[in-house]
Each structure stands twice: as structure tokens, then as C-alpha cells.
């Protein structure tokens, strides 16, 4: 049985999802402000890291890395509702791409699992 990342299609799945996902995030008034002023080109690369991680793909992030990456955002008010919104957009993206519901749930579970680190608590 192959792992989640392989079932989703690996790197190609990340590439197919990243721009779709980022458009949804920028269009979502609940969270768009956290991405203000950051260059889109650079953000796309960071979002690839995010998706690779959420898809269960190879990554070397530690909990401390996640704390550091989001510290600045937590200072600006990042909370549970924003994490929920990101996961919601992730779900919509995967459904748009025709990913089966079972895998959508597995991805959401991985994203949920780093919530405490992302929120620095």
C-alpha cells in the first residue's frame, strides 16, 4: 500500500494544486491579510512546502520550524479560526482536483496535527 503522498500523485499533485490553492487563500477575506505585502513568487514556493507537508510528502520541518515560520503571524493575531479557514481552502482545492474524500480527510488530519506548533502554543 503506497503512502498518501504517492497516492495523491507526489510532486505533480503539489504543482497542480499550488496556484489553485493560493488563489483561494488570497480571495478569502478571513485570511488574505496574513499574505499582504509578500511577493507572490516567493509565496508560491512557501506554499509548495506547505502542500508537500500536508500531503505527507518528504520534508524536514520540525515543530520548531513551524513555530518560527508563523511567529510573526501569531503576533498579528493568527488563531484557530484562521487555521480552520486554511484547511477549508485546502479541502476545496483537493475536491476541485477530483481527489477522493478519503484522501481529502487524511490531508486535513495532517494539517490539523501541526495546529499547536503553527499557533505557537
Amino acid at each position, binding site marked *: 500500500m503506497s503512502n498518501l503522498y504517492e497516492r495523491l500523485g507526489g*510532486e505533480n499533485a*503539489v504543482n497542480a494544486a499550488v*496556484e489553485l490553492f493560493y*488563489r483561494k487563500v*488570497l*480571495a478569502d477575506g478571513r485570511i488574505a491579510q496574513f499574505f499582504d505585502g509578500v511577493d*507572490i*513568487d*516567493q509565496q*508560491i*514556493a*512557501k506554499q*509548495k*512546502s506547505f502542500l*508537500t507537508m500536508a500531503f505527507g510528502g*518528504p*520534508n*524536514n*520541518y520540525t515543530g520548531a*520550524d513551524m513555530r518560527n*515560520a508563523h511567529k510573526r503571524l501569531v503576533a498579528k493575531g493568527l488563531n484557530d479560526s484562521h487555521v480552520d479557514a486554511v484547511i477549508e481552502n485546502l479541502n476545496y482545492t483537493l475536491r476541485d482536483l477530483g481527489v477522493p474524500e478519503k484522501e481529502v480527510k487524511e490531508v486535513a488530519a495532517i494539517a490539523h496535527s501541526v495546529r499547536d506548533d503553527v499557533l505557537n502554543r
Partner: protein
Amino acid sequence: MLKFEDRLVELRPGETVLEALERAGIDAPSSCRSGNCQTCLHRAVEGVPPPESQVGLTQGQKALGFFLPCVCLPTSPLTITRPDNVGARRDAVIRAIEPLAPNVIRLRVDADDFAYRPGQFLELVVDGDLRRHYSLASHPEEDPFLEMHIRLHENGRMSRRLGEFKPGDRLHVAGPSGTCFYEGVHADQRLLLIGAGTGLAPLYGVLRDALKRGHLGPIRLYHGARSRDGLYLDEELKALSRTLAHVDYRPCLLDPDAPAGGDVAATALHAEQDVKDCAIFLCGGENLVRRLKRDFFMRGVSMKNIRSDAFTPSG
């Protein structure tokens, strides 16, 4: 063999370039360490990085030797440098300096062995430490000089200094840098070039390079200016679009009474609804570039089809 600038770096079998740099005590940023976030970006100035270390980079970056050290297991000798290292300063001599419009000059300098792609920018250095970026409007295969279009800001340090220069005077150049050039574009793709003020300089370079390389698809160039004088290549570009059926020049004079803002960004966004498959080049002030980049991306243009340079003021 691995070299970081002038320094030999030991590379152990199975070790990535990032690990080797870190072991050698060289300050190398990283984050994901798996080839996604691009935090570790470096550039090879000699040798060819393996293709798997360039996954996700733009065609322009690949052409310039950029790569990701965290996923780079070199198979041949490499000499690398930080991505923003512009290299050694070179001597340059002013060949011509003349007005294009009331506040815009055309500066042509001679510099030996300065390889570049039209649309890239260089660092102009005067008086030892006054440095500013300027984009290249010239074409290396057609012009024996480097050409820049420079807006003179009233209190600008470089602007004021340039006002005192004359042909024969010496200065320095370094670079080039930037990936806003004609690379990774299909010959029959629609090209959309949008800029304001001296943002025309790199677009003019890109336009000439596209034509030189036999671009066949329709090319549309929007140039925005606050006054008629500011459309400083108006005659030449009008003549060009009369001669070449696939070139369409759209001068945009700022119209403060227009409902949507009346600037070149508003005009282009209104006229260009179907942009999904265009190759887009955006140059000029930060706000203009940021707005167009975002709006075109949201309309469905992939970021790999959007190239841009924002003329961010220095310091």
C-alpha cells in the same frame, strides 16, 4: 569539486551542497531542506547544476545557473555564489548622455565583456559607493553599448549626480541581475508588455529580443506616462507597430477623470480580459507591478508566465 566564490569547499560523497556549505562554516540560509521553499537559492557561475536541483525554478533562473543547494548532489565541478552577488565592478565610459523627455535621460556606456540579456538590470556605481539599479534597453547582439533610460528625481542622489556627467566620463557597472527577460516563452504565445515611465526600458529590450528571436505571436506593449512628453519612445514605437503587423503599441496617458483610475494598470486590466495563456512582462513602480501581478494571477495566469521588475527605491 565545489567552490564557493574563491574558496574550495570539501564535498563528501552523498553530501548535498547545502550540507557541505554548512560544514565549511559558510552562512547559508535554509528552511525546508527538500527543494520546495527556495530559501537556500544559490547560483552556479561555473559548471552545470544537476536538473533535479533546478525543479520549480523559472526558465530564466535556470538559464542563469540558479539552483537549490539542499537538493543538489553535484555530478561535475561547480563554482557557486550567493544569489544577489553581482560580481566584480567593471570600468565603463560614457558614450552618450542625452534627454529623452524633460525628466528622462538616455545613458549609453561602453563596457568590455559585459554579457547580459535585454531586460536584465545592472548596478551603476559612481564616486566609489553611490550605487543604483538600472534596466537594460539595449541588445547585446545589436548594440556595442549598454543603454539605460533613467528618470531624474528632483532630490535623487544618483539623479543629481548623473546630471553632471558628460561623454568620456568614467564610472563602474556590475551585474547583470534579474530574470525579467525573454526566456521560456513560446514563439507563438501572446506577449503582453506593460510598464510605466522608465519601466519602458526593460520592456523595450524584451521587445527587441523577442523580435530578434523570431517571436511570431501577437505582441502588445502598454506604456503609461503622466504627460505626453513621458511617452518618450512614442514615434519610434508607433512606426514599429505600423511596420510589423503583430506588434501593437498602446500609449496610455494618465487620465485622472477616468472612472477606473485612468492609469496604465487600469487601462490594461480593463482591455486584457483573456490573458490565461499570455506571457506577461511587468516593469515600473512597485505599486503598479504588485497590482498587475496579483490581478493577472487571480485571473488565472500562472506565475511562470509572469515576469516582472519593480523599480524599488534603494535604501
